[in-house]
């Protein structure tokens, strides 16, 4: 076989044909490469939804998406960015030109405050609020100390309602015109041609329309006392925005809860009134409250957060501020007077105590009506996760006391500033106090309440006489001797 002649190509190409073919091949490669580049570009800019990714779980918790950064209920990034500069007169603190004015926390060099996620949807960036908006806060050891940011802690300084009112004011203002907004955006950035066209023709007019329509739906806010910092009316907006139900007469504002140790909470009655015993449904309903919708909710990214908060816990009370011996003495007092309802192993923990027994303000309880409960269980129709666990209760749930020292002010409506005050008979508890200040009261376990203003930031006066703000009830331990009270407080700090 080795000496068989080489086969002859009887139909070779001419030099011209070879050159033509080579050029065609080159051209095809160029076109293919170009198409791939264009496709990648279009994919990057225009595929339905590309959230900003955060590999590290804590930064995902702080800045990552749960699906509220959608065109329907999220905020167009550049409008959101320029609004504080366009309407500084509507910001509560003229010394703080950005959203920190409302109590959002802004880490140095970060693109945006904690609690805002970002997502590119069909070529336009949107921001939305995530879990961290309401479940991250800070405390300061003293006035001169740097703030310590605590993930999962109730955002006791955040005036979320104030933030929404700010958006309403901006959109209602005559100065909010397409040309004014575009001019402001152009000062900030150089939008791509397509994105700019979208902003000019769709996004800016759409934003105004959307915000004004929401403003109209929550017009009932004006009839109720303002939520103030650290509080939210969880279910009122549900009724108004999701179900178009008539607003409740009750003032449903309650404190943001902490988001720690969710694993042992599974099966407990969650929310202040204990209206749902599924951590999963609680997570999803909170996400909808933040602006996600059943179609936009980012299940895998929400699951990352949900998974992390199963075991993430509060920071311990600083040892140097604690009288350990005193705390040790408080332990049996706790066991005797608190543990059955509030200890992880307590018989009644996670269970609802009737309102008549507990005696605290009933506005929050009443704000969740039976109609609303039935409506809540229609959310997610057609989805495998459809809500089924919402129920109407007649009281408030006994919550575990993990990280209690950072959960001040106390009771569901934040009407009692410190643990010391909580152990006072209701009549002796402070009638008014300033909320939202972040310097810690190491003695009484809570935040200092005597500061009305610092660096232009105002800490509104909380009036326990206003509707929904009542500080009565939960008289447990109020009759203890002072010594026991001090020991109990010291012990509670360690939880």
């Amino acid at each position, binding site marked *: 076989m080795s000496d068989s002649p080489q086969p002859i190509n009887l139909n*070779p190409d*001419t*030099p*011209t*044909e070879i*050159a*033509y073919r080579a*050029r065609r091949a080159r051209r095809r490669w160029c076109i293919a490469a170009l198409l791939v580049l264009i496709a990648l570009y279009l994919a990057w800019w225009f595929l339905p939804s590309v959230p900003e990714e955060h590999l590290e779980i804590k930064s995902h918790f702080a800045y990552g998406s749960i699906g509220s950064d959608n065109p329907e209920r999220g905020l167009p990034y550049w409008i959101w960015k320029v609004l504080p500069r366009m309407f500084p007169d509507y910001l509560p603190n003229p010394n703080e030109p950005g959203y920190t004015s409302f109590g959002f926390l802004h880490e140095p060099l970060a693109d945006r405050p904690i609690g805002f996620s970002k997502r590119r949807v069909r070529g336009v960036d949107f921001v939305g609020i995530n879990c961290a908006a309401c479940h991250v806060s800070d405390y300061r050891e003293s006035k001169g100390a740097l703030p310590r940011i605590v993930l999962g802690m109730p955002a006791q300084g955040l005036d979320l309602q104030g933030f929404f009112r700010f958006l309403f004011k901006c959109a209602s203002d005559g100065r909010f015109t397409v040309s004014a907004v575009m001019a402001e955006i152009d000062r900030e950035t150089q939008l791509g041609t397509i994105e700019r066209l979208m902003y000019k023709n769709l996004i800016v007019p759409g934003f105004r329309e959307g915000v004004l329509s929401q403003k109209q739906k929550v017009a009932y806010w004006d009839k109720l006392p303002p939520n103030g910092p650290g509080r939210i009316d969880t279910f009122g907006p549900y009724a108004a925005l999701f179900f178009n139900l008539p607003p409740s007469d009750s003032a449903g504002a309650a404190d943001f809860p902490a988001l720690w140790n969710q694993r042992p909470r599974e099966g407990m009655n969650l929310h202040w009134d204990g209206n749902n015993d599924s951590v999963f449904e609680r997570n999803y309903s909170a996400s909808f409250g933040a602006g996600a919708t059943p179609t936009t909710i980012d299940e895998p990214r929400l699951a990352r957060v949900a998974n992390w908060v199963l075991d993430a816990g509060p920071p311990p009370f600083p040892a140097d501020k604690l009288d350990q011996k005193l705390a040790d003495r408080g332990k049996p007092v706790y066991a005797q007077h608190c543990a059955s309802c509030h200890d992880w192993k307590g018989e009644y923990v996670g269970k609802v105590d009737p309102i008549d027994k507990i005696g605290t303000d009933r506005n929050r309880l009443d704000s969740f009506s039976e109609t609303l409960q039935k409506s809540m269980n229609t959310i997610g129709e057609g989805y495998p996760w459809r809500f089924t666990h919402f129920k109407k209760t007649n009281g408030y749930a006994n919550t575990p006391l993990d990280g209690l020292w950072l959960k001040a002010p106390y009771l569901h409506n934040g009407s009692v500033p410190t643990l010391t005050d909580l152990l006072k008979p209701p009549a002796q508890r402070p009638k008014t106090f300033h909320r939202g200040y972040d310097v810690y009261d190491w003695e009484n376990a809570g935040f200092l309440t005597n500061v009305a203003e610092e660096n232009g930031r105002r800490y509104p006066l909380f009036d326990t006489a206003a509707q929904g703000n009542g500080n009565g009830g939960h008289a447990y331990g109020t009759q203890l001797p002072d010594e026991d009270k001090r020991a109990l407080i010291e012990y509670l700090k360690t939880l």
Partner: protein
Amino acid sequence: MSAAEKTLDSTSFSHEQDREVIFQPIEFPSGLKVKNRLFRSSISGTFDDYNGHGGNARLNWEEQFARGGIGAIISSFVPVAVSGRILTRYATIDDDDKIPFWRLVGERVQAHGARFILQLSHSGRQQDMGGIENLFRTVGSSTSRKDFFHGILCHAMTRTEIKTVVNQFAQGARRAREAGLDGVELHGANGYLITQFLSSGINDRQDEYGGSVENRARFVLEIVRAIRAEVGRDFHLQMKINAVDHNDWLYPRWLPFGLGEKPGNTLDDTIAICRILEDGGKGVNAFHVSSGSTFPHPRNPPGDFPVKDALRWYDGMLSSGVRARLNDWIFNHRPSAALFRRLWIKRRGPLIEGINAQFARAIRPHVAVPVLVTGGFQHASVIAAVIRQGWCDGVTIARPLIANPDLPKILQNQNGPGPGKECTYCNKCLINDLENPLGCYELSRYDGTTFEEKYQAMLKSVMSVYSPPASARLKFAPEPSRTPAAVAVAPAAAASSPTGRVQP
């Protein structure tokens, strides 16, 4: 330019005075005498056998001009080698076996008192349709850069190849002399091989054949000397040369990605080359001035660009050059075709008749030999003017002679062809030559009142080149060897061969 235009438009001389100038004989330093100042410029026609042997139509073709009173005919593009052809079916002079045909042509032309000068040519990279002999090889050039118009591939010739080609030119001249022809012309213009060496816009060689004017002229000087060595000093040798290359007419220098072309030779370059080629009196005996470093070129043949005809007849080029499809696309789309035509006309400029006369005027004082010039001549007043002014010694004419083969006779009697009979410079002849018989395809020139009448008249004119037909002239001697018995044996022999192959 205004002086030239004034002169060319001059009517201050009577037709008799013009006629006297035009029909004055001329004698070249080689001793060649031509009866008047009118030369048929080189124009080809695909009239011949595919393998380069001349055909009957070529005899008819050339004879019609001699009959029409022309002083001398410069032949078709005659390749000195098959590898240097531009189109198939052009008679070649690559072998001694072509001598008898050219002798026949010479005799028929000379019988009318006209001279016949054979144009020794080589395509170089401007090989429009090289034919099957050249299908699988690229053609030699001074450069390896493809021809920019059609994108025809080429390779830079080695010194050995140069030597071979120089000798092919010399042998071509020898064959022309042996055929009894009156002289030869080197086709050193319009982008063919010799231009490719001469032009600073095309020649990118780093060796002794590239760079300076002297180096670029080395190749053609070697040809001139080789021819002189082969045919002696009394055989007429003239050189067709570009006065100016305008090599950047289609792809201007500023284009990106290396697409731009350099402008090429200036008039000063050309004058220097001419002086070199005179070779101290031992070189060429005349210069034939043209311009434009490609063929075709807006300046040569100067006129229109018939886009519709290009679309019809350019398709044969598609397999030849890697830019042919682009050109075809351009011709095939109205906006691009219109743009191309506008560019073509803009690059040419407003002047057609006498377009190169100023160049001849510039060259003639610097050379000792007569200067001929080409470019649209068809009026006695213009021809006489350029000769009378001393800008040139004679004019060469191609397309106006295709339109009116008896143009010299017309010019004897009047200033030019009658109304409607002039060459319109439409260049349809040029484009049709790619696939059809060479002739005048301008219907407006033909008699008739309907399209059909005019078209029939055109066909009659174009096809007249085939009359008389070959069969009227051929005589066959009996061939005793081709007997029926011999034919019958062959298949049997093949069948009996053990290998199944015919034994030698």
